[in-house]
Structure formats: structure tokens, C-alpha cells
């Protein structure tokens, strides 16, 4: 009897500890979401400017005759996929949902770049051809990660080995919803940046074609960085929600255990009292 009381007490303590850890992690994620959203906000003016400039440049350049490795559709079957996942678990079904998408990529001509330890391990297990892997990190992904990624991707693009680059990540829809999303980064969709031909009031230096070919890598980087921040926000949101429910569940368990502990204790006291009163008449 005494033992089981002790046991219950210990279990209550455990549940409460878990709840406390859950609460702490929830709060950490909540503050990280705020920072990530700030990063998105800060990045926005630049992203808009680059997109606008690219569109302006295409007003003067005839895309049909313009040649750039980023626009070319090659003959090769090889593809590069950049997969982004968190480094750690404890973020609900986010990783599982991502992996379901990863399984769909069973292709021998596939070259995979992983960002995040979770997807790296998984891709390794299903024997995908990983050419580079990066950690995701605990803070908002920095721009240098984008440069590192482009350093890996560019040689493949420039020598024409690969022309198709896509990205897979969990898109942040809301705090409660993050869905795995994949889209193509390269070749850049001509219709996406093409615009009506006009006579621009600008003078271009050195020439429109040169400016455009400088702009396209920036355009690529902007879209890549956007996906990275987005994936990071998703991770934090998923973790926050998962930790919130973990905390609530742990508190529920603690409540239930406290109730049985009290019942047990009451029972024991009643029994002891009965023993005492019975003993008096003997």
C-alpha cells in the first residue's frame, strides 16, 4: 500500500516535469516564430525589388533569343532536389509528412541536397543519392546558407549536366497547418518573369542582356532563401503546437494521478480508522 502511494507520487512528479519541459519548449518556439516572421518581413523589400527589376529587364530583352543556363531546359534526365527539414524531432507530424513526399522521389537520376539532419538520415536510409548535406541550425537560416547551396548547384547547371532543380519543404500556411510542398526553382519559368515588350525610359549599363543575366542568379537566390525561411517558420510552428498538446496531455495525466493518489490516501485513512475503532471493542 505504502509502496504504491510512493509510486503514484513519483509518477505525478514525472508528469509535471514533462509538462514543464513542454511549456518551456513551447515558449522558445513561440519566440522563434516571431523572429522568423521578422526575417520574412525584412527580406520582403529586397525580394520585391529583385523580382520587379527582373521583370523590368525582360521588358527590354527578348527572352526567346536570350540564353542563360538558368533558363535552359536540358536534355539530361538528371534532376537536383533540395530537401529541407528540421534538425530535430519533437515537431508533431511535420517530419513524417515530409518523408511521405521524399519516398515519392525514387529515381536513379536524382541528386539530392539535404538541409537538416532528419531528412539527411531518412534519405540515406532509402538510399537516395545525396551529393551534399547541410544542417538546418537552431536560428533563422542565414543568407550564407543560400550561397553555399548555389555553390553546389551552379557547377551542375553551368556544364549542362542538370537543368532541373526543385525544392521540397514544409510550407507554412498557418500556425496549425504546414504542408509539404515541392516546386521547381530552375529552369526559371519564362512566363513567370516575362512581360510585355516596351520602350523603357531607362538607359541600361552595361546592357540589358548583361543586367538580366546578373539578375537571374539573384532571382534564384531570393526564391531559395524564401523557401528556407518558410521551412524554418514551419518547424517552429509545428514544434510549438506539438509541445502545447504535450504539455496539456501531461497536465491531464498529472491531474488524473493526483486524483487516484488522493483516493488511495483517503481509503487508507478510513481503513486505519476502522482498524482503530474495531480494536477498541476487542
Amino acid at each position, binding site marked *: 500500500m505504502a509502496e504504491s502511494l510512493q509510486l503514484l507520487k513519483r509518477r505525478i512528479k514525472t508528469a509535471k516535469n514533462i509538462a514543464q519541459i513542454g511549456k518551456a519548449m513551447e515558449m522558445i518556439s513561440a519566440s522563434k516564430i516571431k523572429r522568423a516572421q521578422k526575417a520574412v518581413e525584412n527580406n520582403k523589400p529586397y525580394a520585391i525589388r529583385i523580382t520587379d527589376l527582373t521583370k523590368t529587364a525582360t521588358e527590354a530583352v527578348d527572352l526567346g533569343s536570350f540564353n542563360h543556363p538558368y533558363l535552359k531546359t536540358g536534355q539530361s534526365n538528371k534532376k537536383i532536389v533540395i530537401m529541407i527539414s528540421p534538425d530535430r524531432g519533437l515537431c508533431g507530424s511535420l517530419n513524417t509528412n515530409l518523408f511521405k513526399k521524399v519516398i515519392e522521389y525514387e529515381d536513379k537520376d536524382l541528386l539530392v541536397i539535404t538541409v537538416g539532419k532528419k531528412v539527411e538520415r531518412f534519405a540515406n536510409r532509402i538510399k537516395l543519392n545525396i551529393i551534399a548535406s547541410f544542417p538546418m541550425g537552431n536560428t533563422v537560416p542565414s543568407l*550564407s546558407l543560400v550561397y553555399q547551396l548555389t555553390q553546389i548547384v551552379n557547377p551542375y547547371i553551368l556544364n549542362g549536366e542538370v537543368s532541373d532543380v526543385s525544392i521540397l519543404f514544409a510550407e507554412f500556411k498557418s500556425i496549425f497547418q504546414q504542408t509539404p510542398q515541392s516546386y521547381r526553382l530552375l529552369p526559371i519559368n519564362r512566363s513567370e518573369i516575362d512581360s510585355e515588350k516596351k520602350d523603357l525610359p531607362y538607359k541600361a549599363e552595361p546592357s540589358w542582356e548583361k543586367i538580366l543575366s546578373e539578375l537571374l542568379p539573384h532571382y534564384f537566390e*531570393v526564391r531559395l532563401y524564401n523557401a528556407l525561411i518558410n521551412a524554418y517558420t514551419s518547424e517552429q510552428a509545428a514544434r510549438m503546437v506539438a509541445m502545447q498538446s504535450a504539455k496539456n496531455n501531461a497536465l491531464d495525466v498529472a491531474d488524473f494521478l493526483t486524483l487516484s493518489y488522493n483516493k488511495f490516501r483517503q481509503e487508507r485513512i478510513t481503513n486505519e480508522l476502522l482498524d482503530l475503532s474495531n480494536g477498541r471493542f476487542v
Partner: protein
Amino acid sequence: MENKSKFHLEIVSPEGVIFQDQVQEAVIPAYDGEITVLPNHTPLLSRLKEGEIIIKYEKEELLIAITGGFLEINNNNVYISSDYAVKAKDIEIAKAQQAKKRAEELLREKAENVDLTLIEKDLQRSILELKVAEKIRKKQRIIQ
């Protein structure tokens, strides 16, 4: 009159809007030489190289270091978009020096899994930051 002697200058980088104000004059490192932009400049779109932008406004001078980017001048609005732009004031010399040292060390070691081009970029950047920051220091000393 106020409007005619000034123009709008905006410098954006992926980290946010670095500068946004009405200014009188700006010296910008364009692709083939520095250009000085004054109000009512002809519309222009240009590539920039790395260097420093010198902004004159309110009798003050402000230096901003950039590593390349694009310049758009249209209707007295000047937009500069750069990968990396930082105000000279914000550059902590010590920090830049440290980064330079670290990058140099890494270069020397030539560690296998470290990408050399990236380190070189880092080194270039910290050298640029140092240059601009020291320029400011000199100027302050003269004033004192």
C-alpha cells in the same frame, strides 16, 4: 525648392531596408566607375560593383559598404538593391578584424571540407568593412 534639391534614396538588402531618406547627393560605385547622382538624374539601370556609397544629406556624410548589386534611377527615385549592405557606423572594427583573422587562418589551413571561395568572399568582405570603418575613424580624428 525643397523637393528639387533632394531626391529619394532607398537601399535594400536581404536583411532589410538599410537606408531610406531624402538626400542631396550620392556617390555610387557603378560597374564602370563611380557615378555621382544628383537630383533629376537621367533614368538609369546599372550593375554595381563592391565598394562604398557616399551619401550626403543634412550636411552629413554617410558611408555604406556594399558588395555589388543593382541601381535603378527613375524620376528622382533611386533604388539600390544589394546582397549585402552595411552602414559604416555599424561596423565594429574589432568584429571585422576578428573575422578577417579567422578567414585568413582558415585559408592557411585549407581544410578539406571548407569551401575556399566562400572563405575568400568572407575575407574580401571583412577587408572592405575595415577599409570603410577606418576611413570614418580618420575623419572623426580630423574633426576632433
